[in-house]
């Protein structure tokens, strides 16, 4: 060890304390806030309530029960529907992404002939070319008046996929890499921030009547998190020697059975961590849910945003209470799968 001077020690602890306060104070404030009665929410009167003076469970009651009156002039219902909605769409989206993503990842891990990652300029160039090629179609479709019909969207999508593949092939002539491969297309999906696709998705969803439905949200969550699942699960599958599934195939399994009976059990640790990661992404989403829901399927973050009354402004107490409640599912989920969050399951499969 190297010598630590006293002033270095002081600086170190000072930094630790500052960072700790930055991280833990908001949590502390939220917890105490959830037990504070209305009068203690604001420091408008000049007093700051560091601890609740008259602790109360009213805030929890407010968000968990059908409550009209004091706080809510408008016909404001409880948070229960939004909690239900959050649970349904987060789990649904996670399952959807896991289902298609895991299979795709396995396929890519075992059958892709990719030699490595693409340089970014090839990747961006391909995406740019696609946008350029598709622009005239947007104009044409709009002229024809079919841009927002189901068959318009369908044909546009098909043309897009075909164009993407052609661009991939053409680029592949000049760049001997992974252009034109499936995993590249998935990488490409990862490059879209959800914001970039949300407006078109809104148009599509209203055409397909998917706005404010649980399955409409599940599809979007599934698609947005799909690339994460593919890239995480691919790395887990890559760690499992391909000779294991081949041994199963030689031993008489079909390719599907080899996957389900030999490979997937070995990847369950990875599957669990991927599921948790994707679930948290879905659970904490605000933007997608805000734009694609209205009355029925608003999720917790959307509901939190609406916890404002015209009379006294933001409902800090109920917000804190619901926020705390919203932390519970990811934590419980994490604890439940904790035993699977270990690596090294493949030890002993092969000789070193």
């Amino acid at each position, binding site marked *: 060890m190297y010598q630590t001077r006293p002033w270095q020690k002081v600086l170190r602890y000072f930094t630790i304390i500052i960072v700790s306060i930055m991280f833990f104070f908001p949590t502390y404030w939220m917890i105490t806030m959830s037990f504070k009665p209305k009068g203690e929410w604001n420091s408008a009167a000049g007093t700051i309530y560091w601890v609740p003076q008259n602790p109360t469970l009213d805030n929890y009651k407010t968000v968990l029960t059908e409550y009209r009156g004091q706080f809510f002039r408008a016909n404001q219902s409880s948070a229960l529907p939004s909690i239900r909605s959050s649970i349904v769409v987060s789990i649904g989206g996670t399952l959807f992404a896991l289902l298609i993503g895991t299979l795709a990842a396995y396929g890519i891990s075992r059958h892709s*002939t990719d030699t490595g990652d693409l340089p970014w300029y090839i990747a961006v160039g391909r995406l740019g070319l696609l946008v350029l090629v598709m622009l005239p179609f947007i104009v044409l479709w709009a002229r024809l008046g079919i841009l927002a019909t189901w068959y318009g969207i369908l044909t546009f999508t098909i043309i897009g996929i075909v164009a993407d593949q052609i661009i991939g092939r053409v680029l592949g002539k000049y760049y001997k890499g992974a252009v034109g491969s499936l995993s590249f297309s998935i990488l490409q999906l990862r490059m879209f921030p959800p914001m970039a696709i949300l407006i078109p998705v809104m148009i599509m969803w209203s055409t397909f009547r998917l706005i404010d439905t649980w399955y409409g949200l599940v599809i979007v969550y599934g698609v947005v998190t799909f690339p994460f699942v593919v890239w995480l699960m691919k790395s887990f599958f890559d760690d499992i*020697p391909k*000779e*294991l599934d*081949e*041994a*199963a*195939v*030689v*031993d*008489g*399994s*079909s390719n599907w*059975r080899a996957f389900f009976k*030999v490979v997937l*059990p*070995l990847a369950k640790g990875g599957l669990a961590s991927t599921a948790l990661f994707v679930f948290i992404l879905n659970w904490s989403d605000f933007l997608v849910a805000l734009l694609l829901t209205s009355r029925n399927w608003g999720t917790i973050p959307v509901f939190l945003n609406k916890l404002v009354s015209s009379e006294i402004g933001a409902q800090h107490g109920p917000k804190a209470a619901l926020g705390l409640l919203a932390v519970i599912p990811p934590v419980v989920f994490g604890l439940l799968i904790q035993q699977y969050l270990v690596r090294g*399951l*493949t*030890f*002993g*499969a*092969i*000789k*070193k």
Partner: protein
Amino acid sequence: MANLRLENVTKRFGPITAVKALNLEIRDGEFFSILGPPGAGKTTTLRLIVGLEKPDEGTVYIDGEPANEIHPGKRDIAMVFQNLALYPDKTVFDNMAYPLRERKLPKDEIERLVQATAKSLYIDHLLKRKPAKLSGGERQRVAIGRAMVRKPKAYLLDEPLANLDALLRLEMRVELKRLQGELGQTLVYVTHDQVEAMSMADRIAVLNKGVLQQCDTPEAVYNFPANRFVATTIGSPPTNFVTADVRPHGDNLLLAHSVFALAVEGGRHPARAALESAAAGQALPEKVLIGFRPEDVRVSTSQANGCNVPAQVSVVEPLGGETVVDLRMGGDLVKAVVPPTQRLEERRHVWLNFDPERVHLFDARTGQRVYTTGQGEPFACLEAVH
């Protein structure tokens, strides 16, 4: 029992040709070994036979039937992978039961077969353990057990004894030979260890860079190597090679090295015809490679009868049962194997005396063997002035 045949099989991976126009026939009940250095295409050949790879060209026949389109699981061939590929989350019992369960055998039948197989491999006390808790040799047995338990037509073993320590390897070698004798099944054994191939196999196929070099019995491969590669691969230490000039000398031919020469006497000597045909035409090649095995060389401190070639001892490696001597012969370094009782000091001047019955001539350009004295007339030996 199965007869396996590869006809003109080629397999490419991108720019690499892993196996090139391979013709092989592995007969019923044969212990067949595929020998080659790393990257020779040994594993690829096995994967082609079992169906994990599809040939780009050519056909794989199993019992005379074209099998290119048959799923690996339906070929009834078992394979032990180079890395064993035991299922790490399953116990030894479940590992061995896996192929039987996939065949939907009744439970008690599975139990009985696994127990019997485990007993014959002396691993019946390990059935409840996971592979991670086994020693290297035990894992090896489990992998072989998983292959044996379903009584396949043929076994493919990919370097099964690599990575075991020397003693265990010797033990397993004997045992594998015994097992194969008992099972009487076709067994293809891939190895890069020529001793394993020589000691176990009925026939050996020597592979290099995806190309078959020679396929014959161990004796034939040892005594009549098809080319320089085989002569170097088979036998330890490898065959010595020295380059000699080919000089016509009246009716005779002289194969002249800097310190000695072999005389091919008479215009009708078969070696002359062989050299001429190797050179494609009537003209003789300018150079030829003379090859002789270290085992066929005697080293003595005085001249003896036969061919005496002057040399100087460079390095002496005593191996216990024998001693390997590196010698400087003119500009060439050659090796000789001598009895351990013979004392030779470094830098000592000695005479090399090699068995004129066991000298090979190789084409200097292609490396193909063109003539072996054991097959025909021997050469006369001339000592060069030095």
